[in-house]
């Protein structure tokens, strides 16, 4: 392996950006391809597919055998709101392989008593997200119902192209939210990406059922990402 390729790969992984190490198994030469880099032909098509699936493997192209090793950041879920739904969502998300963080400046809600073993930040979203920016491999669910807490995070999630953005609230609540996000400078196309009412429609009634609906919608968004957004991706 080329030392420069290894350094580049590790830098990409630390920055939570997707990269594929492409190795020619015939002569051992390798290079890093970042998501969005243009690669022509059959190899390019295989690389695009690998970015979507995250599955590493060998591919025959141009009469050679290439090994594509996919290094995709681990998906994570950021939840705005240390509420009842989040209490159910935290263990479910962890079991499903989506590590979760909860942000809520209301210290009465964000207590380790209510959220044992959860990465919990009793701070304003703007302060946490400044330190730990959102990215395309992050899902954001805003469930406080409080515009003062939710709105900034939703706008940040849209700007960071989070693979999933969901917001709790009825259609009426969401209509008002749309107005506020437009005023914050979000475009109509961006706002259309928000899942509201939040969660897959499974008729969820209890907080735990709503948590299932949110998690299922997050998984669906992650496993299908890049497919519907093909035209939109820069």
């Amino acid at each position: 392996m080329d030392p420069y390729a290894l350094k580049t790969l590790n830098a990409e992984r630390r920055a939570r950006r997707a990269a594929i190490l492409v190795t020619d198994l015939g002569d051992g030469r390798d290079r890093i391809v970042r998501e969005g880099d243009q690669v022509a032909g059959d190899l390019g098509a295989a690389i695009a597919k690998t970015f979507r699936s995250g599955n590493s493997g060998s591919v025959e192209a141009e009469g050679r055998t290439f090994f594509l090793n996919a290094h995709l950041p681990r998906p994570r879920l950021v939840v705005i709101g240390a509420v009842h739904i989040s209490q159910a969502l935290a263990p479910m998300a962890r079991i499903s392989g989506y590590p979760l963080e909860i942000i809520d400046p209301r210290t009465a809600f964000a207590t380790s008593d209510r959220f044992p073993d959860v990465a919990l930040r009793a701070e304003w979203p703007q302060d946490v997200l400044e330190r730990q920016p959102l990215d395309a491999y992050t899902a954001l669910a805003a469930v406080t119902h409080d515009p003062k807490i939710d709105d900034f995070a939703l706008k940040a999630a849209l700007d960071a192209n989070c693979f999933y953005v969901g917001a709790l609230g009825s259609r009426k609540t969401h209509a008002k939210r749309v107005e506020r996000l437009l005023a914050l400078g979000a475009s109509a196309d961006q706002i259309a990406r928000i899942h509201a009412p939040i969660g897959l429609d499974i008729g969820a009634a209890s907080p735990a059922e709503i948590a299932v609906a949110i998690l299922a919608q997050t998984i669906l968004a992650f496993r299908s990402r890049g497919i519907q957004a093909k035209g939109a991706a820069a």
Partner: protein
Amino acid sequence: MSDNLYLDEARDPLIIAEAWMKDGKDVAIATVVETWGSAPRPVGSHLVIDADGNFHGSVSGGCVEGAVVTEAVDVIGSGKARMLEFGVADETAWQVGLSCGGRIKVYVERLG
């Protein structure tokens, strides 16, 4: 606590390989490039090895690491990459086979 929640720097084979390289060590990287049947580690998994036979990571559940380390030390010496195959169908199965019944292909190359 590491400031990166999502990358376990202390145990990540590729991060360790880079650190070894910075320390001036000779390093080989082994990668699972193909699996058939039940295989304990998925395609893309890494084992990194230095010239003294120290290693981190895994390419199986501990069944074939010893053999890969031995080959890797040779690869560090020669600089020539090798493709290794392990599985119950191999002649060597009784020594270093995969008891789970799967087969794996491991690419071993020198870093640099």
